[in-house]
């Protein structure tokens, strides 16, 4: 070993940048149906390989194949399709509403819709999600009213959160959706705490934690894994790897780890990777992990491999840091098209029905928006009273806040 050789810093860089030709040749995509399905009580050591593969059900022909495929009825599939189409339509409308100044901010789910929508349908009532800002599908798939989401986005007089929160930072205990934090990763260990509570109370409910690829670098991701592994908490730990964290490609957070799913190995947590754009695969893997948690077998880590097809948020322009057409060349395709193709392939759907569904969904979204706008948008119409600004800081308003509210004239 030549001790005199000088060191150099390795700074990971994405393969391509704006102007380059998109290239995903480094992403190995196993054939649909090729990954085995172990029993839920499998020993973690025996499924290490599943963290380095990708569980896929839908093949290029739109067929559902392999051991993870035998799950859903055509009705369930159509419901799933409706959910992801609704989410996409909802996003599109809200992006326009943002451009029209009806809200200050928006974050869309484009390209990732299948993940949260499918996961939610694998949960049972009473289970609790601890989501990030990009799991709106959880609400859609649990039939949370679109109009309430819009009321929140518009910060209007019916906003369930009284204008206090940034748009899309929903909260709904009744729909199993924990209040979203702007501070990344905090929810990850909170989910574990919720699951521990359920176990302490000998309940049957389980929790689901959500985090983005970039945010796995945050410390509370570690805290979550440590607590989940120590107490074998009934929780599903979900990592949505959409390849980007604002302008930062996943290689920065992932380092030399191969995959994000592999993070679970140091904790003895079974860790699976799944095609996030394959509704059937997501739902099957989600069910596996949820069953495992419910059977008191402890946590499971799931990495959803997907691609953030849109901008990070309405404050961001991705053409500054990645090729414009990168999204189109993403090898796992589009979740709507893949599910639609599958339904058509099995004779349970058609182009016409799809068109019609699109129109119906558009109508539903537009109707909800009309209704929401009656109650105001950010700068016009009804809005939450300023009194609300002072309320809810504590269960009871302490004297100093009462005084401040009076000073403010409310």
């Amino acid at each position, binding site marked *: 070993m030549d001790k005199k050789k000088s060191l150099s810093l390795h700074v990971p860089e994405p393969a391509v940048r704006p102007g380059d030709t998109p290239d995903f040749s480094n992403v190995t995509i196993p054939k649909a149906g090729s990954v085995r399905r172990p029993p839920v009580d499998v020993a973690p050591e025996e499924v290490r390989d599943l963290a380095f593969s990708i569980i896929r059900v839908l093949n290029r022909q739109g067929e559902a194949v392999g051991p993870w495929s035998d799950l859903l009825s055509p009705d369930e599939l159509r419901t799933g399709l409706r959910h992801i189409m609704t989410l996409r339509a909802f996003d599109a409308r809200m992006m326009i509403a943002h451009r029209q100044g009806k809200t200050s901010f928006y974050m869309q789910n484009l390209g990732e819709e299948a993940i949260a929508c499918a996961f939610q349908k694998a949960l049972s009532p009473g289970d*609790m999600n*601890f989501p990030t800002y990009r799991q709106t599908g959880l609400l859609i798939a649990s039939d949370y009213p679109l109009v309430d989401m819009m009321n929140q986005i518009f910060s209007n007089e019916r906003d*369930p*959160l*009284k204008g*206090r*929160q940034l748009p899309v*930072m929903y*909260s*709904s*205990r009744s729909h199993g959706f*924990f*209040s979203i*934090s*702007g*501070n990344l990763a*905090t929810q*990850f*260990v*909170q*989910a*574990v*705490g*919720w*699951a*521990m*509570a*359920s*176990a*302490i*109370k000998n309940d049957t409910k389980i*929790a689901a934690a959500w985090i983005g690829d970039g945010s796995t670098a945050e*410390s*509370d991701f*570690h*805290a*979550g894994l*440590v*607590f989940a592994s*120590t107490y074998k908490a009934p929780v599903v730990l979900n990592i949505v790897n959409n390849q980007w964290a604002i302008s930062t490609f996943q290689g920065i957070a992932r380092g030399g780890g191969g995959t994000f799913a592999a993070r679970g190995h140091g904790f003895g947590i079974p860790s699976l990777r799944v095609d996030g754009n394959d509704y059937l695969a997501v739902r099957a893997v989600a069910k596996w992990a949820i069953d495992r948690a419910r059977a008191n077998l402890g946590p499971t880590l799931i990495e959803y491999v997907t691609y953030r097809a849109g901008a990070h948020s309405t404050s961001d322009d991705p053409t500054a840091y990645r090729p414009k057409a990168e999204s189109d060349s993403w090898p796992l395709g589009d979740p709507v098209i893949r599910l639609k193709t599958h339904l058509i392939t099995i004779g349970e759907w058609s182009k016409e029905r799809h068109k019609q569904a699109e129109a119906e969904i558009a109508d539903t979204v537009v109707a909800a928006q009309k209704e929401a706008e009656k109650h105001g948008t950010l700068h016009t119409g009804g809005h939450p009273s300023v009194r609300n600004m002072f309320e*809810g*800081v*504590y*269960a009871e308003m*302490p*004297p*100093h806040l009462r005084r401040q509210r009076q000073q403010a004239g409310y």
Partner: protein
Amino acid sequence: MARKTMIEAIRDAMDVCMGRDENVVVFGEDVGFFGGVFRCTQGLQKKYGHTRCFDTPINESGIVGAAMGMAAYGLRPCIEIQFADYFYPAYDQIVSEAARIRYRSNGDFTAQITIRMPTGGGIFGGQTHSQSPEALFTHVSGLKTVVPSNPYDAKGLLIASIEDDDPVIFLEPKRLYNGPFDGHHGRPITPWSKHDLSEAPDGHYIVPLGRAAIRRAGARATIIAYGTMVHVCLAAVQEAGIDAEVIDLRTLLPLDLETITQSVRKTGRCVVVHEATLTSGFGAELAALIQEECFFHLEAPVRRVTGWDTPYPHAQEWDYFPGPTRIGQALAAVLEV
């Protein structure tokens, strides 16, 4: 016999709460089998089982974060940070999560969590076992901050904190755990059994949050303190032979401003005392409020006697600690004017 040390009173408060409410759970580093490095949770695991009182991994953010999730579920966690000096890794969970969850979710989720931490110096703990970080909590809307000065209050305030529906930072002056401390570190320790306020009845009672106590009525000046400093101030007053009123805040937020302003309007002079560093300490808020509220009653500027603006040194501990001499000097100074 209801005489208790601070440690016994604190332990008893948790015992009472765990006995009355199955949703109360207690956890933290070394709090389970061992009963905590200061033994405040001793016996609770044995009595309530290891799913209601248990050891955690050494991750303060995880401890508070897990408590957040448990509170969202409906439990009522009372957790221990081993020393107040170690809350920093949990600050994000405390500030961004516990303090704001009720507000941001419009009451959909709440954080009925009590976070206990031993605080203050006087045990040669050096800069990482001596800190008094209360001002870092009082600046955060949504938190309540409590500092007891005796066993009676410690038990009643801790029960009130655990039963409170908001997150409470419960700072335990570790120099008081085993006896009152008047700042004369050379003298032998007086045990709590000799102090009236160690009479902490068994069973349930509360000392309501947000109410100060006047520990000594007086006419010539007002001294505002909390925790260990209450005893040091009482000693200083006695030694100086000055008829000063000594207010023990007990709760820093919500603050009992009325008790303070009443006293200062009466005496016209005020000294604020704490162990934490001066700049941006809680004494700044007190001085600011007092000059706002009592301006025309004040005969002299409000003076602050505090720890210096340095880390808490190890060997120079007693030069750092704001002892009776410095308090006496400040009293004399406000009276001189």
